[in-house]
């Protein structure tokens, strides 16, 4: 009795001092779950690709799958999920992406006095950085991936040539550290250069990587020798970049190379042959020329889901908008038909054949018995299912696709003992659909991440809070701060029934660009335009309104993100 009372008083004290901060760290909107035990009742269980069991029940306890079977005793504290006719898959695994890492704002680069000798960070050489430092579990990209059925991401930092070390994250809510499954899992390299400083080109980064690799090998060996017996040896220099590269020279860390096109794949294989590190090819879009070599050397691969011939826009949600877009499309097509010349026709035929090659790549890899997963550096979470359907239409088997989403990435990432299949003892990452995932009409109903349930069974309705969104209606000025070349213009926001209509007109242009992908969330507004440049370029706006002013960001495809601000300029023009 005494002890119990003592514990009670102690816990009160602890609560007073610590409790508040703990509570603040939690997401205040989410009530604490009653229990961490779940009972999924009567489902089709897809244990692994090709193995489907019916009438199964699953018990999840403290983040793990604690039991599976047709006849289980329901734990007294379990939340019951009736999954009649639902399909339960192992949570999907994102093999490589920047999920959870916000794009850094474009900053003016400090003046470099000698472009041949820039500081490492400016040259894009930051192998010491961990993606843990910048990962945000509440970033939109995390929720987007989770909504698409993913429970785990292998996240690389954003950057240039050597952006840093990637870590593996569970895609749950909570603080970053809690979500890390494996920190500093891999080192990363990409064929991305910083303009104007060494190495500024492909030939530069190839040479620079060789140089760094050899020096890391030498420095690592020297340090080891010094630790054993320092007599007669110089004290090792501390060099954080080289030190971070030791593990790839000793094969304790794999080196992921982002190799999108055929020549990138060739370069990656060339570097591996030359330097001898453990290579993983990732974001591969055009790798089929090297299938033999990849197979012989048993190189793990993540294929990109950014495929050509895709409609990059999000699927139309309501019929009205869709019809209008379609009619516009057919109009354009009709105009073009008249002007078609034979050269264009030949070109189109050739191009169609090329697109087909890209779409058939996954099937081709499957046929050759190569284990591959998918990577998502350049693709949208909401397009994933549609894209996978395209791969299946082009010869990939459903089991192959499921393997690429679950068992294969688990194996490549060295996590087969924890994830990838639905088995007793594994981490409770599950994706639950109403029909087979590969059925065109299937919908993801629930996603479990680390034993925590995320419910998508009721589609979130578009927030249409009249009180806030009417404040956005109007003609607004804008100013985009692009270093040395700021842009000004007007944004016209009006409402047509319940739908927003937004057009953007630059002061230097006579064209108005019509916005798509309009999303309103409280006082936040985001939309996209295709700016009419020499090649049409997608520009994403995300704005936050505050009475008569707003601020935000503009993201111009591949050029970066720039701040935007503006103010109210009167009623909307109606004749846009």
């Amino acid at each position, binding site marked *: 009795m005494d002890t119990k009372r003592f514990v009670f008083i102690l816990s009160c004290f602890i609560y007073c001092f610590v409790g508040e901060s703990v509570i603040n760290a939690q997401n205040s909107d989410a009530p604490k779950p009653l229990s961490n035990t779940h009972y999924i009742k009567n489902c089709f269980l897809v244990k692994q690709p090709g193995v489907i069991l019916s009438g199964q029940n699953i018990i999840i306890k403290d983040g793990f799958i604690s039991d599976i079977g047709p006849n289980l005793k329901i734990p007294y504290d379990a939340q019951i999920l009736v999954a009649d006719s639902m399909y339960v898959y192992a949570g999907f695994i994102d093999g490589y992406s920047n999920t959870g890492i916000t794009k850094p704002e474009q900053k003016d680069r400090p003046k470099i*006095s*000698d*472009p*041949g*000798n820039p500081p490492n960070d400016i040259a894009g050489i930051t192998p010491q950085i961990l993606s843990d430092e910048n990962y945000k579990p509440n970033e939109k990209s995390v929720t987007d991936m989770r909504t698409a059925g993913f429970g785990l991401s292998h996240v690389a930092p954003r950057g240039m040539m050597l952006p840093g070390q990637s870590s593996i994250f569970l895609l749950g809510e909570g603080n970053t550290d809690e979500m890390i499954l494996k920190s500093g899992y891999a080192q990363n390299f990409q064929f991305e250069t910083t*303009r*104007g*400083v*060494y*190495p*500024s*080109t*492909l*030939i*530069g980064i*190839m*040479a620079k990587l*060789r*140089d760094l690799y*050899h*020096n890391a090998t*030498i420095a690592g*060996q*020297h340090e080891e020798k010094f630790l054993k017996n320092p007599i*007669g*040896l*110089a004290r090792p220099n501390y060099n954080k970049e080289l030190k971070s590269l030791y593990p790839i020279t000793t094969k304790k860390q794999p080196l992921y190379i982002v190799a999108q096109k*055929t*020549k990138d794949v*060739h*370069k990656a294989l*060339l570097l591996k042959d030359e330097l001898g590190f453990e290579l993983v090819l990732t974001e591969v879009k055009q790798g089929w*020329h090297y299938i033999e070599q990849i197979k012989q050397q048993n190189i793990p691969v993540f294929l990109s889901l950014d495929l*050509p*011939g895709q409609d990059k826009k999000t699927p139309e949600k309501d019929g009205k908008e869709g019809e209008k877009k379609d009619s516009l499309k057919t109009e354009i097509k009709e105009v073009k038909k008249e002007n078609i010349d034979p*050269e*264009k026709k*030949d*070109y189109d035929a*050739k*191009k169609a054949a*090329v*697109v087909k090659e*890209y779409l058939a790549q996954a099937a081709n890899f499957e046929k050759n018995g190569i284990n591959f997963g998918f990577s998502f550096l350049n693709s949208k979470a909401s397009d994933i299912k549609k894209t996978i359907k395209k791969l299946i239409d082009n010869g990939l088997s459903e089991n192959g696709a499921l393997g690429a989403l679950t068992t294969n990435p688990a194996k490549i990432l060295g996590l087969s003992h924890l994830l990838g299949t639905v088995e007793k003892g594994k981490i409770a990452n599950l994706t639950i659909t109403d029909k087979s995932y590969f059925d065109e009409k299937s919908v993801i109903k629930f996603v479990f991440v680390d034993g925590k349930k995320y419910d998508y069974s009721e589609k979130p309705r578009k927030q249409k809070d009249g009180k806030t969104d009417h404040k956005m209606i109007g003609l607004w000025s804008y100013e985009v701060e*692009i*270093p*040395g*070349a700021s*842009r000004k213009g007007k944004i016209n926001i009006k409402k047509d029934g319940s739908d927003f209509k937004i057009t953007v007109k630059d002061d*230097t*242009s*006579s*064209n108005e660009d019509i916005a798509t992908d309009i999303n309103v969330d409280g006082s936040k507004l985001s939309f996209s335009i295709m*700016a*009419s*440049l*020499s*090649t049409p370029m997608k520009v994403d706006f995300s704005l936050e309104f505050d009475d008569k002013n707003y601020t935000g960001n503009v993201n*111009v495809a591949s*050029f970066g993100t720039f701040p935007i601000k503006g103010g109210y300029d009167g009623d909307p023009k109606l004749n846009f």
Partner: protein
Amino acid sequence: MLRYILLIIILLPKDILSQNILIKNGTILTVTNGVKENTDVLIINGKIAKIDINLNAPDGTRIINANNQYVMPGIIDAHSHIALDVINEATSPVTAEVNVGDVLDPMDVAIYRALAGGVTISHAMHGSANAIGGQCETIKHRFGTTNPDDLRMQGAPRTIKFALGENPIRVHGEGSKISPNTRMGVEQIFRNAFSQAQIYMKEWDDYKKGINKTSPEYSLRNETIADILKGDIIIHCHSYRADEILMLMRVLKDFGIKKICFQHVNEGFKVAPELAAFGASASVFADWWAYKFEVYYSTAFNAAILTRNGVVTSINSDSEELIRHLYHEAAKTQRYGNLTDDEALALITINPAKQLGIDNRVGSIEVGKDGDIAIFSQHPLSIFTIPQMTIVDGIVKFDIKNDDADMRIDINPNETYSSFYENQRHHESQGCMHGLEELLMEDSYAKFMRYKYSKNHSH
């Protein structure tokens, strides 16, 4: 045994499997051994096997009738930038460590266009932005492959690009406000680089001998310059003015370096005896000059003067357009300098082969050499000649009778218009200073905005 042979054949890249070819009744311009009328050339397994009258071919040999046609060795271009994705790493005056062999583009349609001009080998070079630029790659025009390695001429000696004069001064001195800012500065860049490499070699020697226990730092740049000092790499130096050419020869003499080919070398005619005495070779334009200040003092007699002074001379293109008619360029030396047919043909065959260190394998029609052949409708030095067929390693790579309208290998699947125009844009500036437009611009966004402005104005 049979299975083993089959296995070897299967493992060979498709392209390397060459056909046996018998070229019948042509006028053979051997370049090194005179002209042979009505003669046959037999190519077996990619090599020239026999040159004689009335040859019999083994079964399965492809017979090519060259009656009334001229058969010459495949043309070699000692200075080109085709088939490359990057030409300049222009951020430092010394970049010996970079290698354009890393960025070969086998899909570049310029390779096919060069084949259509009888060119079978080109020297894919780094640009001239830096005093010591990058290493170059001697490539065979094996068009039709997607693998960059298939282009390499295996076993060809290593080469490196140097540059004198205005280009390195403009890029680094004026552009980045660092050395070299003058022609004197360029000389000092070379001397410093060679001296540093000597120190580097000594440090590593001391370490290897056990004099020093601590390993020196590795430097791919110094490794490469050390290989130049050891004579393992041939220098190809962009140059115009006579004073600078003499300067570089003095520097090389001081460091004991012998292998040098001067490129462009427009004032070579002024120092031809000195070049010959040094053993330097020269690769020139037939008649191209006045495109910048240091290139005004020039003459179309340059190649002839150099040749007659005993300098091994070649005529190059430095352009994906000129590369298609190097035979015209060579013919100009007959108008300006009265070179003989053999001398003029040597400028685009055996001489560039010598400058690249591959003259034992290509550059003339001799038994044992590679089956690299160009067939012309008339004498290749005639203005009326038309290339008919080009053969690389015994494989027909261009045939005027079977010349498809669209020879592109790789089409960008995301492009909305024909990537032919995209290629045009890319190639407009495919020369020595390629890649610098962007570097010299203060701000890349300015370019993006200019695009937008120009678009709006044109509407």
